[in-house]
């Protein structure tokens, strides 16, 4: 997709819609009925899709035994004890894991925003030998499964004594290994008129100043999209955190959640649901406030 978004000029049919036929004609009536049916269907389908999530939210406030008896959304008994029990059910209180996750998220955010925008500036604006080749390599690295390199990465990081530190999860981001965001920003930078940097260049700006003073301030939407997706991916990441963090005090939220069943038994779904809700809450907030950038980001690059 390119950035020349569709114009908002009304089309013929939209103009026609503003001058509807009299509502009494049979075809209008049929159209209305069809619209009602369609909305009913969509709402029912949406509700079915979200039902497990809503049920988990409700169940996190139910006493444990009711979770296995009440499939409905209205609880017959409400308690907060799942949250207090769940918070302390593992070796460390849950805020310990939340903090660990947040440290990794913060490091990844800083790393991706700086390193990917720098690389993107080079690909979008600089002329250098082999640019197309490097660009193609960058594109291919997006599709490289992490599983191909995780074993030697593990060996490398254990040689450096980095296992059970956050470094294996943060340092790669400082080195622009999330190439998807380079691509996203290259796309965005290309849409910024090059007359702007030509003018700055004539005024004596070097590339450093053009990057800092012109490109970055004009790229807030792309940076926001990068930040949001970095947050979501890092928060949800399980595989690499599972591999690199094996000591319980270094566990992040997903890794800690997974040990819940092992350490508390299958019966304690209440506290587990409560902590699951806690773990999903930041994602949900990002979803609520970052929707505009989320939808734009997916639409322009197709990231998940």
């Amino acid at each position, binding site marked *: 997709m390119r950035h020349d978004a569709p114009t908002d000029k009304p089309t013929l049919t939209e103009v026609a819609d503003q001058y509807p036929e009299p509502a009494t004609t049979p075809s209008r009536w049929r159209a209305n009925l069809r619209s009602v049916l369609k909305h009913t269907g969509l709402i029912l389908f949406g509700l079915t899709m979200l039902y497990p999530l809503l049920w988990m939210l409700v169940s996190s406030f139910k006493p444990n035994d009711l979770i296995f008896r009440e*499939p409905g959304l209205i609880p017959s008994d409400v308690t907060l004890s799942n949250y207090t029990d769940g918070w302390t059910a593992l070796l460390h209180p849950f805020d310990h894991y939340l903090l660990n996750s947040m440290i990794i998220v913060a490091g990844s955010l800083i790393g991706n925003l700086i390193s990917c925008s720098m690389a993107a500036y080079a690909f979008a604006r600089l002329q*250098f030998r082999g640019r197309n080749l*490097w660009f193609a390599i960058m594109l291919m690295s997006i599709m490289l499964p992490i599983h191909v*390199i995780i074993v030697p990465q593990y060996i490398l990081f254990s040689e450096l004594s980095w296992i059970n530190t956050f470094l294996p999860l943060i340092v790669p981001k400082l080195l622009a290994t999330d190439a998807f965001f380079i691509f996203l920003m290259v796309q965005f930078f290309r849409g910024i008129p090059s007359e702007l940097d030509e003018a700055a260049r004539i005024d004596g700006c070097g590339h450093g100043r053009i*990057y800092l003073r012109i490109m970055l301030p004009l790229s807030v939407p792309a940076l926001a999209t990068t930040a949001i997706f970095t947050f979501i991916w890092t928060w949800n990441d399980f*595989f690499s955190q599972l591999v690199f963090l094996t000591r319980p005090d270094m566990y992040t939220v997903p890794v800690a959640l997974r040990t*819940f069943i092992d350490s508390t038994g299958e019966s304690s*779904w209440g506290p587990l649901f409560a902590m699951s809700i806690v773990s999903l809450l930041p994602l949900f907030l990002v979803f609520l406030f970052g929707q505009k950038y989320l939808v734009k980001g997916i639409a322009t690059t197709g990231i998940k």
Partner: protein
Amino acid sequence: MAIVDEFRRVKGTGKAGRSRSAAHRFDGRAAVVFLAPWFLGLAFITVGPMVASAYLSFTDYSLLEPPQWIGLDNYTRMFEDPRLLNALQVTFTYVLVSVPLQLGAALGLALLLDKGLRGLAFYRSVFYLPSLLGGSVAVALLWRQVFGAEGLVNQFLALFGIQGQGWVSHPDYALGTLMILNVWTFGAPMVIFLAGLRQIPQMYYEAASIDGAGRIRKFTAITFPMLTPIIFFNLILQLINAFQTFTQAAVISGGTGGPADSTMVYTLYLYQKGFTALDMGYASAMAWLLLAIVAGMTAINFLASKYWVFYND
């Protein structure tokens, strides 16, 4: 779409770009500075490990002793390893069943939501939310409860007097629950389809209307052909994603890939071999087979795309 376009662009206009740069200026030194982090990452985090992994795949290595060169043994072992063949079968079944269903749902819903439907933004959010949360451990744990013996599904079935079974603990159904989870996350491709639908010029439909085309004819003659590049893009993206699925299988099966290896997806077996059994040479060989499969599938898709993907340029 985007990335696929880029590959076509790089291939098509490579020479034009070079001649322009020759006539213009060179920013080699600045480029080195701006690309320095990326070059370092490429060397030490991506390409270096790839080379090391290629070497390790020809060795017997357990982290504790230095690697022993064993030639092609790991690769020949793979094709005699029944658990690995099973993992391949499980993964292919998972990918080939759930990805088409997921994309079908995404396309269907996108078509329903298009055309200035009131409340579009609301519906889009509702259907997209599962994509956002679907990769989390929390949702995988929820799935384990929902499809468990006393889970939500069976509680509903009990209302109709049906005694359901433990879906996640039955070898015939456990993989199905993973597929449902993947289909449930159709929101992300749906948003891409919606963006693609908006790019189709409205005048085509107006012209078709004047020519007397009905809904179905408009879909087969305009919407579908115009959308094929995006279907293609979504297909590649989701195939690659689905092949690497790990979290859901690992969490729902409690890390075992059970019952009876029925949810032992490829990456989970790789993880067990590499990081539980510390058979790192074998795991490296497995990683290269995975890369070959993913690359091969992508290549086949690109080749096949000539016959069904329509580029309007």
